[in-house]
């Protein structure tokens, strides 16, 4: 116990010398930079988040306008390939602003009048060579559904629409294609375009399908 005052006095001297320890040079500046710098980084992050938000909104508005401009004809996406008969008509509920396809708008330009057939007051078909689309309406033309057989080769298309359910398509490669394949493939649907099947291939020496004979349902070369 006789060393207790000695310990306390030694402690006081020891702590007093420690309290005189100088802080590292530039400590205040470093701390200010770190603490206040983090405040600025928070502000920067907030600004960056706001910029991203504005960009996303602008992008969304742009995409929306682009879709509106491309939606002159409101058609559903192209059906699945004919080899898997799962293609189905996806009716579009919203009536189109222009109920009939306009030649100069969208992906259906310059349809020949002969490829537009109304088989009844409500049901009709529309297609055309060079468009690579077959459309079908069941409400008098207010809405059009894309019932194109996805597996059909792109090129010259000739169609024949017998009634509301039965239709045929004869297609060949586009003239000028870098191939000597001039065969003509024929597709048929019997359920209004929901499913298409390839009914045959006609090997032509030269030429493109020009018409389908309703009786024989065979393409004839022009």
């Amino acid at each position, binding site marked *: 116990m006789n*060393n*207790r005052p000695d*310990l*306390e006095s*030694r*402690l*006081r*001297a*020891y*702590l*007093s*010398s*420690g*309290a*005189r*320890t*100088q*802080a*590292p*040079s530039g*400590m*205040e500046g*470093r*701390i*200010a930079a*770190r*603490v*206040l710098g*983090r*405040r600025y980084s928070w502000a920067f992050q907030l600004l960056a988040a706001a910029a991203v938000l504005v960009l996303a909104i602008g992008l969304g508005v742009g995409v929306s306008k682009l879709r509106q401009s491309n939606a002159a004809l409101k058609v559903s996406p192209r059906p699945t390939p004919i080899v898997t008969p799962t293609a189905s008509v996806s009716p579009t509920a919203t009536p189109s602003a222009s109920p009939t396809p306009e030649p100069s708008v969208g992906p259906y330009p310059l349809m020949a009048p002969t490829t537009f057939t109304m088989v009844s007051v409500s049901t009709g078909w529309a297609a055309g060579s060079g468009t690579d689309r077959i459309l079908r309406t069941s409400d008098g033309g207010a809405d059009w559904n894309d019932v194109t057989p996805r597996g059909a080769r792109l090129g010259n298309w000739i169609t024949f629409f017998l009634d509301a359910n039965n239709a045929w398509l004869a297609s060949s490669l586009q003239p000028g294609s870098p191939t000597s394949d001039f065969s003509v493939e024929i597709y048929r649907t019997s359920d209004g375009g929901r499913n298409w099947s390839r009914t045959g291939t006609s090997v032509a020496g030269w030429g493109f399908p020009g018409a389908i004979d309703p009786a024989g349902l065979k393409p004839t070369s022009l």
Partner: protein
Amino acid sequence: MALTEPISDADGFESAIRMESGRLFAVAYSILRDVQEAEDAVQETMELAWRSWSTLRDPLKRAAWLRQICVRRALRLRRRVLPRLWLADRLDTDRAAPLQSDPDLDRSYRRLTRQQRAVIALHYEYGYTIDECAHLIGCAPGTARSHLARALTTMRKDLQNE
């Protein structure tokens, strides 16, 4: 010099850092006995203070408030080995760390827990009562009294053996 000016913006806070960080460093160093860890404790103190800077209405209480934060930060500071290595070439540690005039006591003091060191430093160096030490550390007065008693016992044993 105490913080008496109403400080509410970044410039004012920066001036507060320059005024108070030296004293806070001394408190932290008396507990931690490490220059870089003491600077870390001061920095964490200022970070915490900045978050609540505008909520402290009374500028007269800021100095005591900062000291309490600093003591508790020093007690809870994690040892960061890698940052200390990275900082080693940047800090003038030779100048900052003084030569110990009582190396035996220094060795014994460093063996104490941080809580024990805090009670001893606040009581013997800064003159706080045991109850005030307990308030600053954030423990019960009995606990602070126990820290002090055990610390003194440990140091007496160490010094008798050396």
